[in-house]
């Protein structure tokens, strides 16, 4: 059995860093726990669910996808863009965030194989951390996950001996490459967090498929103020906007995150907006996650991490919406 003392956890990060990996881990950043690049000496915060997820390392919030050198008289030459895909270990990834990778893999390899996403995905080893605790917003168990789920992970760390140790278990070849960095030991794994199933996603999907025009949406979306906090924090949301930015010497084509919560997201050049109000946008968000996506990719676009609800200033909680939808369908 491979074990790590909780207090020596950053030693593993250091060993990985020494071995040439970029290490991403949850770090306490002035009171906010972020999933970010680990640097020497930083403590890894294993207690809280970070505000960002491993998604940020595979599909960054802004990325240059093309460059053009601008010349006189409107001429331009494409400039090759160096692909950024360093060898990375994502350490302490929540099982819900690791599970989200299946949904991301599906969409980034659908009608078009996304080169930069796939390059980073191939270069990343996901070491997840089973949850011994859950909060009121967690609902992985309702969407097919589990606090100690292994989907998407190359290795998993399980809290043991009352939280004083972690048991390391490799789940893939990538994960086995890290085994040598963890020492042998003995420990008794702790029980994973206890969660109650709150709704049945299949029942939610059935109601959604038949109730696009329901008056439910108008009322359910009243509180939504139309920001992108939920989509940007979501480990599955992957919509983006391509923007060209240029000065007199160069044009950069950027891929930036976008959110269906914004009014501009579907605004046509004519001025017409097929999703004219926030209820149409909130409906899109719920339908995409529980109806459209599962129909298309056979996987839900929600892994129950609860970030959207945790971060929403207006208290929009997707699990609660699903509970209400399930009740409507009965």
């Amino acid at each position, binding site marked *: 059995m491979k074990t790590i003392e909780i207090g020596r956890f950053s030693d593993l990060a250091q060993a990985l860093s020494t071995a040439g990996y970029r290490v991403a881990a949850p770090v306490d*950043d*002035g*009171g*906010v726990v*972020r999933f970010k690049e680990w640097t020497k000496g930083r403590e890894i915060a294993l207690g809280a669910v970070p*505000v960002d997820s491993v998604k940020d390392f595979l599909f960054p*919030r*802004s990325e240059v996808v093309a460059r053009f050198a601008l010349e006189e008289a409107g001429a331009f030459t494409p400039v090759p863009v160096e692909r950024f895909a360093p060898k990375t270990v994502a350490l302490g990834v929540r099982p819900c965030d690791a599970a989200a990778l299946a949904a991301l893999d599906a969409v980034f390899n659908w009608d078009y194989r996304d080169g930069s996403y796939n390059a980073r995905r191939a270069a990343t080893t996901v070491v997840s951390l089973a949850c011994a605790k859950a909060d*009121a917003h967690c609902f992985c168990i309702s969407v097919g996950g589990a606090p100690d789920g292994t989907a998407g992970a190359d290795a998993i760390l399980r809290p043991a001996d009352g939280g004083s140790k972690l048991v390391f278990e490799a789940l893939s070849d990538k994960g086995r490459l890290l085994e040598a960095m963890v020492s042998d030991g003995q420990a008794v794994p702790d029980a994973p967090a206890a969660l109650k199933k709150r709704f049945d996603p299949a029942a939610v999907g059935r109601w959604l498929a038949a109730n696009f025009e329901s008056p439910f949406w*108008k*009322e359910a*979306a*009243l*509180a939504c*103020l*139309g*920001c*992108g*906090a939920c*989509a*940007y*924090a979501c480990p599955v949301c992957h919509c983006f*906007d391509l*923007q060209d*930015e240029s000065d007199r010497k160069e044009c950069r084509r*950027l891929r*930036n*995150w976008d*959110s269906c919560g*914004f009014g*501009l997201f579907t605004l046509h050049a004519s001025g017409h907006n097929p999703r004219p*109000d*926030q*209820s149409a946008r909130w409906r899109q968000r719920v339908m995409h996650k529980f109806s459209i996506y599962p129909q298309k990719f056979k996987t839900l676009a929600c892994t129950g991490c609860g970030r959207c609800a945790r*971060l*929403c*200033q*207006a*208290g*929009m*909680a997707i699990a609660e919406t699903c509970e209400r939808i399930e009740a409507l369908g009965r």
Partner: protein
Amino acid sequence: MMKALRQEAAKLLQEKRAALIIGFAEREGHPALFISKPEDCERLFYDVSCRQNLAAYLSKPEVSARRPVAIVASLAALRSLVVLTAESQAAPGQVLALAVDKDAFLGTFDVAGAAELLRSKYPDLGPEKALLERVGELSKKSVVERAAFWAEEFAKCTRCYACRAACPGCYCARCIVEKNAPQWVSTAALGHGNYSWNIMRAFHQSGRCTLCGACEAACPQGLPLMVLNAALDREALEEFGARPGYDPEGKPVIGSWSAEDDHSYMR
């Protein structure tokens, strides 16, 4: 306090003085609650942990379609209501405030009444001392240190615009950052775009911000937005005597002028 608030809200609905009440729910996080039936007013809640400024909903089309509206309003939200009225954004007679302050229910007010209440009982609302100390500390640093501080903070910004959505003052149908011909503010969540965005957000609130703190509370990344807001609030007060949110007929600081304004920094 809660009892008085609930009774008053139910009365407004019964007497048809309001068709919609926007308040806070009791459950965790105290999300906004929308009520149109008197019996549902029992679900209303308020304490200081209710951080949203509900005046932000007044510019939402789905809400303005259901006027007359009454909102549960803290002192800062009352000021926002007055600012919105001064800027012709709140239909007169169509918006009421169920005023609350910490653990007291102060009564129902129309905009004129809210302004009167603020002027007579709370004439000196401003940034809290701790916030001003943070501004002071930052001001004492060198420009290079200040740049480094904000470089680190702004780098966290994902451009989710939760700050904008939270703010009653951010009611533009199309924000400057969404105008792309020309694209003045880069939409990439990278250095210079994040700087421009955060600077312009703060600047567009100067002399209008009521320091409710909803933007900072809404920021998923915990950016210290109130440091910028408070600094501008004090500057607008010192330079132009600006006290936004006290006069529903007052002119905005930016958008008006006086020949007497100081310009000692001009060469």
